[in-house]
């Protein structure tokens, strides 16, 4: 028959064994606990209903549970110890000098304090016994990768399947992403301009051909009865016409060569920005389109934009080293008298500066007053 001590010993042993031999289920998804655990007044100690919500993938709930219960029991045990000490103090108070009662009360208080000390130093004790006891971590579960299972209908014959690669779509997407819709529009516009110029060039060439055919001087084509061909004075006038047409053709070819697209840079020629004060969109509102031919107008604005960007980089506050100011770097001493300029600060206003640049351009019928125009080959 076991005595009382042995009973307590074995009960404790089995209690501890069953508590620690139980396995924790490592569920993939955490559910909200069914019990509402009380929240504890310790900083950094969350109740299970809080930490289960915030738990990260791969993180284990077990250590958090242990931490929570550790602090919960610490609090309960602390309160009990406090109660024991108070009770001991009360016994001491009512002992009325009786030595036996006083000793019992003192023992009660000492026991309470001792229990409290053991409780508070439990972490230290555990770490001293075995440091691994304070590292609360269960061995994790490895991720299971299932092999891909291909299901086929019973009795169905397996046929090879060929997939069509949407090359057209891939190329279209690649081009659109690479160049961008805006640039495609610019390219389209430039192509239309080029087409217009090419048609004009074709007409000129046709006229040139007709003139050349009809410019034989003298009776070069005769048959037995009659001769055809122009007389020499008529042919002379045609030659003058041919020369004029050739010059016109050269001009059109030159325009085709110098045509710039906004946002594109042509080495040695310049750059036309797509946005800002030096953009074609912005500058075009300052020119009167009706007085100019469509082609001339567009080229003029493009030239203006490339000169503007080259001169000031689109900064209306740009101040050059030789008293040049604003977007078109207008030379104050030169134009001060011509246009009654009062002060240099006027030229920082972009509208004023652009309008003045147009006046200067019209006065000279050329971009030559601008150094950039000469660098870029826009003016001689």
């Amino acid at each position, binding site marked *: 028959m076991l005595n009382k001590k042995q009973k307590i010993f074995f009960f404790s042993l089995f209690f*501890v064994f069953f508590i620690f031999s139980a396995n924790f289920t490592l569920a993939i998804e955490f559910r909200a606990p069914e019990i509402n655990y009380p929240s504890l007044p310790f900083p950094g100690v969350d109740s299970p209903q809080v930490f289960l919500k915030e738990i990260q993938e791969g993180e284990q709930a077990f250590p958090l549970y242990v931490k929570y219960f550790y602090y919960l029991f610490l609090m309960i045990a602390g309160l009990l110890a406090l109660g024991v000490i108070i009770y001991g103090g009360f016994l001491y108070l009512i002992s009325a000098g009786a030595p036996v009662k006083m000793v019992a009360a003192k023992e009660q208080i000492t026991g309470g304090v001792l229990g409290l000390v053991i409780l508070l130093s439990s972490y230290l004790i*555990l770490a001293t016994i075995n440091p691994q006891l304070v590292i609360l971590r269960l061995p994790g579960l490895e991720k299971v990768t299932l092999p891909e299972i291909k299901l086929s209908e019973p009795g169905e014959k397996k046929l090879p399947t060929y997939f069509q690669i949407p090359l057209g779509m891939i190329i279209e997407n690649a081009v659109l992403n690479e160049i961008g819709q805006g640039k495609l529009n610019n390219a389209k516009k430039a192509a239309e301009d080029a087409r217009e110029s090419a048609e004009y060039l074709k007409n000129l060439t046709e006229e040139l051909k007709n003139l050349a055919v009809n410019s034989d001087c003298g009776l070069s084509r005769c048959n037995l009865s009659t001769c055809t061909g122009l007389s020499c004075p008529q042919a002379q006038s045609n030659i003058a016409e041919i020369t004029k047409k050739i010059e016109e053709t050269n001009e059109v070819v030159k325009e085709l060569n110098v045509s710039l697209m906004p946002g594109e840079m042509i080495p040695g020629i310049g750059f036309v*920005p797509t946005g*800002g*004060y030096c953009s074609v969109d912005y500058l075009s509102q300052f020119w009167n389109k009706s007085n100019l031919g469509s082609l001339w107008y567009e080229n003029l604005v493009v030239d203006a934009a490339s000169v503007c960007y080259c*001169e000031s980089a*689109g900064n209306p506050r740009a101040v050059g*080293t030789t008293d040049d100011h604003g977007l078109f770097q207008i030379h104050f001493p030169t134009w001060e008298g011509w246009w009654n300029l009062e002060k240099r600060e006027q030229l920082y206003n972009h509208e004023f500066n652009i309008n003045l640049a147009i006046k200067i351009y019209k006065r000279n019928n050329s971009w030559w007053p601008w150094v950039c125009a000469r660098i870029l080959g826009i003016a001689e």
Partner: protein
Amino acid sequence: MRKRKTTIIFIISVLLIALGFFGLSFFRKPISEKPEKTLPKETEKAPQLSVEELKKKLLKNAKPSPAGPDDLIIIESEKKGSYERPSFEITYQKPFDLFLISLYDKPLAEVRKEAENALLEKAEGQLDTLCQLNVLLGSPRFVSGGEILKNPESLNICLRR
């Protein structure tokens, strides 16, 4: 009384020994193992701002320019260029929603790099959003001599991503 005390101490001792014994089989883990979460919160990547939020950030403390109320000066380089003015300046042109980076010193490539880095710093490293803004880079003729920058409508730091 003394017996009770002895019993309590005995039970606690048994508990601790049992815990030490059985605990070994459950908490096997090398002591030297590093903690899993090594990244402190401070080094975590800041959330990405939207384009509008970034603009607000960049335009915070922007100064009005003498060119007019539509122009705002965001950054002026502290370093002086060859022309007694900052080596670069970054302005915002409201009507075009455009960030203009003007370079006032040579070599242009180096000054451009400095300017782009200054803008990235002001944007607090929000490179992805920064690359979505409209930008125009350039250098006036009196600095560049007519030389045109490569890719003047995008930041080089965006091309290198």
